């Protein structure tokens, strides 16, 4: 290996990638897009829809209809008050006679929901308050049950009405019931620490939302940082091959050195990306008082694992680029690779739910997943023993060495061969035997 030449290649690859417009744009655009989508969602949620939503209720129990009408009025008033005079959607509860409800009427109501004249209709069973009186079910019919404010509101209100009537039947009065159902304040907090001056402090506030978002954010950050170099790396190698630049370069540098130089350049690019994003995240975190979710040790682990991930995945992408002769041919080979890369995205929720569980431990020690899962686990729990990230580091490094060696062989042969794309079998033979 000629270190000087590897360094020259690495410097050029880094400069070539960092200086492209698409890189600058994506560095700026990614956080902007994320912030934008959050902002739009908040704005939309605040504004809400303005069309009134009508719901028809058939109450066979004969007890809930009035409560629901009262609840709707109270809800509408609260929303209007919060909106400060702006127009907001009212929920309108229309009570209908259950005696007239037959299949023809059900069809007719369904039809008018499809037309958009009606939001939903509800059949309340006769036994909802007292199961002895018969069917105790509430059937809510609507076109779509996803993300429906109305359904959530109705479910809560109906439950509350049922509870109230059951308690009334048990002999309580409304005042006692209201007191009994008053909500309890629940606040998730961090852990206590002893400061240097001996005083006890509780860790920065950690809300449940942030606790769940932060690890996912870290996972996505790592994934994106690797993806954003791997894909362009593939294209760059294909371009070099098509324009016969590779031929010239190989007149000056050994193929393995060329590949190593490229990989190191890409590691630099990925680390730059992570640093930019982490810098933004740290600024935001310190501004909002969540700095404790990004301790320095975690950042160090993240950088180490990103570097390894780029070596591991980047080498395969580069080898694929060398083996094929245009971008289209590469897609078949890249697809399985992408699935492997995305595997952590399929299991991350399990890992977060029980970061110390054996499943999380095992998954995060599989070299192909370690770079993404290990930092995420470290972000969730400080109880993870040090040997685990260290073992992950060593295993991933070993795996990267094997992969780079195999990829290097494919690269050496592929980079100068043109024409028909190699079959998987041929690639394997190149990788294993180097010929």
């Amino acid at each position, binding site marked *: 290996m000629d270190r000087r030449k590897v360094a*020259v290649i690495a410097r050029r690859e880094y400069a070539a990638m960092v200086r492209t417009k698409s890189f600058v744009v994506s560095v700026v655009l990614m956080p902007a897009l994320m912030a934008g989508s959050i902002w739009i969602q908040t704005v939309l949620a605040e504004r809400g829809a303005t069309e009134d939503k009508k719901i028809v209720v058939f109450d066979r129990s004969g007890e809930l209809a009035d409560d629901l009408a009262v609840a709707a009025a109270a809800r509408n008033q609260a929303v209007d008050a919060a909106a400060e005079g702006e127009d907001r959607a009212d929920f309108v509860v229309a009570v209908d006679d259950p005696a007239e409800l037959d299949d023809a009427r059900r069809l007719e109501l369904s039809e008018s929901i499809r037309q958009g004249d009606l939001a939903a209709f509800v059949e309340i069973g006769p036994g909802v308050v007292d199961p002895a009186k018969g069917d105790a079910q509430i059937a809510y019919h609507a076109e779509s049950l996803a993300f429906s404010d109305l359904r959530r509101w109705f479910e809560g209100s109906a439950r509350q009405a049922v509870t109230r009537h059951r308690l009334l039947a048990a002999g309580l009065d409304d005042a006692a019931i209201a007191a009994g159902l008053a909500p309890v304040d629940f606040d998730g907090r961090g852990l206590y620490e002893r400061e240097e001056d001996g005083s006890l402090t509780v860790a920065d506030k950690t809300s449940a939302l942030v606790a769940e978002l932060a690890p996912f954010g870290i996972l996505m950050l790592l994934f994106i940082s690797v993806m954003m170099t791997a894909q362009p790396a593939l294209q760059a190698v294909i371009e070099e091959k098509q324009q016969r*630049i590779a*031929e010239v370069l*190989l007149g000056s540098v*050994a193929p393995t050195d060329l590949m190593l130089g490229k990989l190191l350049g890409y590691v630099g690019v990925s680390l730059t990306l992570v640093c930019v994003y982490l810098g933004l995240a740290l600024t935001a975190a310190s501004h909002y008082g969540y700095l404790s979710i990004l301790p320095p040790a975690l950042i160090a682990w993240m950088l180490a694992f990103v570097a390894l991930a780029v070596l591991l995945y980047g080498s395969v992408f580069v080898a694929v680029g060398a083996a094929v002769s245009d971008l289209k041919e590469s897609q078949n080979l890249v697809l399985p690779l992408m699935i492997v890369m995305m595997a952590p995205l399929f299991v991350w929720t399990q890992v977060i739910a029980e970061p110390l569980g054996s499943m999380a431990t095992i998954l995060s020690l599989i070299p192909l997943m370690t770079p993404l899962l290990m930092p995420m686990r470290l972000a969730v729990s400080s109880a993870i023993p040090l040997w685990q990230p260290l073992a992950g580091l060593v295993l991933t490094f070993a795996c990267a060495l094997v992969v780079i060696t195999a990829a290097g062989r494919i690269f050496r042969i592929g980079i100068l061969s043109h024409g028909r794309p190699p079959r998987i079998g041929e690639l394997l033979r190149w990788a294993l035997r180097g010929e």
Partner: protein
Amino acid sequence: MILRIFLPDRGRVVVLGNERGRAADDRVGYLPEERGLYRKMKVGELLRFHAQLKGVRAPQAAIDRWLERFELSAWAKRPVEALSKGMAQKVQFIAATLHDPALVILDEPFSGLDPVNHEVLKDAMLDLRRRGTTVIFSTHDMAAAERLCDQVMMIHRGRKVLDGSPAAIRQRYGQDTVRVRVDDPNLDLGALPGVAEARDYGNSKELRLAEDADPQVILRALLDRARVDHFEVSEPSLHDIFVRIARPTQEPAHGPS
């Protein structure tokens, strides 16, 4: 193979006295036939990159000198993709020779060059030779090979068919060629006694003599038929020899290298 990109199936490759490894690399320069330059890089940066790859620590002076010589100084800060084909060829040539190699391999260096650039490049190559650099180049242009080369090797259908200095090669084929210029363009020279083959170059014609034919007899026969402006007994040109070797098989031939 000289650059150790490909390995020989059989035999040995000795480059500048070195048989193993890539040690000779930095003393070898290579210009491939197809332009292989990063299109987005600026000319100056690209040349610095190539020089550094060859281990030159401070290439700037040499880069400026070469750009000056090839009248490309104004282009140093422009991206490679803005260059014309001839300019790109010159840049590639600079990239191959910046590190003062002991051996330069040029694959079809003159392809796609206009006469002016052709001249500039030829002078640069002769300069390299004067400074003691061995220049190996491939070409289909026999006239250029004949004029420029100390040694010519011809490869036909994967086999070496000719090897030696142009003069020696021509000599081996003997004085069997006659160049003539006559005033009657339609005269069938091939029909003359003792002429094995006649080739028409427009203004002048070239005759290959049959074995043991006497040029004097042919001259006399010619004078009977037309006015002779020029009559020269000479060695065949490399071009001729090339055609003679390649033609019987009617296969596409590769140039000498």
